């Protein structure tokens, strides 16, 4: 038996092969998951990448509360996306679980990484290895309504610089009466409060979350000071009643309604207001502590990483490097009123003269991000010790008891 000879001449086969391999490299097209709440800025970045690169990225928005499950199960089934953008607070748990690819060598050799915001470097490093970079950043700040300040006889160009001033200004604005209130916070939203309330505690000298069972938790005077200030505002009716049950649905809209004097918020407010309500007269300042000059912020947003076992690691690594490039930082982030994640580009052509963006850039440089395992358990869950402490102290009035209970529970979780 002899095998029949191919009817296609060898040269033709070679030409066909060459032609096929010269086609756009669809095999290197990438898949990327992004959490839904950060999908807008993520899409801006991916669109920019796709407009200038041969390998295209297909972006899929994953509901925030499904990201951990999907990533973990995809890793176990060997079906991970090539890239993933997720809430940076999950980084320690993901790194420890071995879900991400080690990028240390690549990033160390990247000159752009040297000026990457320190908070992102810290949160993405575990046992000396780095697993991701900041992708679409956000940071918390304090917003005040200039029109209400003016109406209340306050200086509309000067936001509060201490926690005591927050209370004082809120009281004066509430005195305007009717449905105008001095202050807003989402009382049943753990994530909102770690974002905008905890930085005031940190600014006033507190350490928040324990890294292990032997660490310190909720120490210093800041926690009590801030909780008592909130309790005063709640007791005196400076905060609307529905704040107690708000799970975050009104986190932004309450302030945007124009009926709230002061509220913690994020840098995202700038682009949102520019788009939705460009005439809204408000200012942004750093979240204050007990004394003038004491400030802090929560560095949030998304990090981008490569899931372990990704099928297109080389192209995915190229994207991670590109995220830190001038093009991505300026045309992808700054041009869209989003903060850059490189400190050397914080002051750029797009932020010049924009005091609000410069304030958030400053917040990014002084901000903190807690590097802890079990963040979701300690803070983000609906029954977490963090939100239970906030609610018990402010709405039930037991400040000391709430702090003690939360501290014990946090240490128990951290010791797991």
């Amino acid at each position, binding site marked *: 038996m002899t095998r029949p000879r191919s009817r296609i001449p060898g040269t033709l086969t070679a030409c066909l092969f060459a032609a096929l391999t010269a086609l756009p490299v669809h095999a290197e097209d990438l898949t990327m998951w992004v959490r839904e709440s950060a999908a807008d800025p993520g899409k801006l970045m991916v669109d920019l990448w796709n407009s200038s690169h041969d390998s295209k990225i297909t972006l899929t928005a994953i509901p925030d*509360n499904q990201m*951990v*499950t999907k990533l*973990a199960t995809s*890793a*176990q089934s060997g079906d991970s996306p090539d890239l993933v953008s997720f809430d940076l607070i999950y980084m320690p*748990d*993901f790194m*420890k*679980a*071995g*879900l991400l690819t080690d990028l240390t060598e690549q990033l160390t050799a990247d000159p752009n990484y040297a000026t990457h915001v320190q908070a992102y470097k810290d949160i993405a490093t575990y046992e000396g290895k780095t697993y991701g970079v900041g992708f679409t950043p956000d940071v918390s700040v304090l917003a005040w309504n200039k029109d209400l300040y003016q109406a209340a006889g306050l200086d509309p160009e000067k936001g509060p610089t201490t926690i005591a001033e927050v209370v004082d200004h809120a009281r004066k604005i509430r005195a305007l009466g009717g449905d105008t209130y001095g202050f807003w916070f989402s009382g*049943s939203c753990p994530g909102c409060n770690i974002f905008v309330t905890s930085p005031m505690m940190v600014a006033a000298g507190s350490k928040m979350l324990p890294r292990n069972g032997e660490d310190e938790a909720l120490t210093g005077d800041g926690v009590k000071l801030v909780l008592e200030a909130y309790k005063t505002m709640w007791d005196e009716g400076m905060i609307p*009643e*529905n704040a*107690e*049950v708000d*799970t975050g649905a009104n986190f932004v809209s309450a302030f945007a309604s124009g009926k709230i004097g002061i509220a913690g918020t994020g840098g995202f407010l700038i682009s949102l207001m520019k788009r939705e309500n460009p005439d809204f007269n408000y200012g942004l300042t750093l979240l204050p502590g007990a004394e003038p000059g004491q400030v802090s912020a929560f560095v949030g947003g998304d990090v981008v990483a490569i899931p372990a076992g990704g099928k297109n690691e080389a192209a995915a690594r190229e994207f991670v490097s590109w995220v830190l490039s001038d093009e991505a930082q300026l045309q992808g982030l700054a041009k869209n009123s989003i903060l850059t994640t490189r400190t050397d580009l914080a002051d750029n052509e797009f932020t010049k003269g924009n005091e609000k963006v410069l304030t958030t850039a400053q917040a990014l440089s002084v901000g903190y991000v807690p590097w802890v395992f*079990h963040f*979701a*358990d300690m803070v*983000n*869950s*609906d*029954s977490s010790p963090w939100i*239970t402490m906030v*609610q*018990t102290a402010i*709405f*039930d009035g037991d400040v000391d008891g709430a702090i003690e209970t939360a501290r014990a529970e946090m240490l128990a979780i951290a010791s797991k």
Partner: protein
Amino acid sequence: MSTRRNALVGLAWLTPTLAFVGFFVLWPMVHLVWLSFTSTSLLGGGQWIGLENYRTAFGDPKFWAAFKFTLLYTVVITPLLMGLGLALALLVSPNTPLRRLTRSVVFLPVVIGLASSSLLWFWLFDQQVGLFNQLLVDLGVIDAPVVWFRRAETGLAAVIISVTWKVVGFGMILIMAGIQSIGTDLFEAARIDGASRSLQVRRIILPLAARSLVMATVISVIGSMLAFDQFYLMTGGGPRGKTFTSVYWIYQSGFVRFDLGYSAALSVILMVVIMAMTVLQLRLQSRRRR
């Protein structure tokens, strides 16, 4: 020979169903029980730890608080759903055009997803923009809009109102099917004998539609014991964790705290409790019939 052949043919016909049930019901159940004896994390890893998860579960005050709340919810909502379902079924069981229309209108919310209906009611109960509050103010029931989810009691009431609106039509249809299966000659005979409507209900409808009533009750109890969406979306477990249901707590353990093994153990406990409750209800009913 023929009997054996028939048996084989019967088995062949049953095979697809057996395979389906085995793959989608029995295997996941076996896997769940196995998981409950491990320390498996959502992020991967874990090992065999025997009964440790069950020991933790029996000493977990938050799980038992959630379980008690679930029981309270079930005890309150089940009679409400069954009572209203029976009343509506009695009202709409005769086949007239207006009654058929009423049936459809009452049944309509059943086809809406529970999550959608919960979100709808969440905003209807809103203090500032909620129509429900406005309606109560206009009717003079309350002086000013209420923050419904500020207290566990009012939060529970709000959820019960929303769920009743959503599912009462299902009970109505089940019970109505039972009523319509009763022969008309019985009612005619009762009427000739001068039996009032209430006497017909007590002596004819309730005894003969009892199977449908029990079935509706069992389904309602199981559904209430597994309540999750409505509390997740409307109360978020608040205030201060007072409206967590058992399934909500299982979700928290597995998907927020990443402790899959422990949440599997809680699921097994809940499954056993629900099975026991269902068997008890069916036994009580069959004893009553005897």
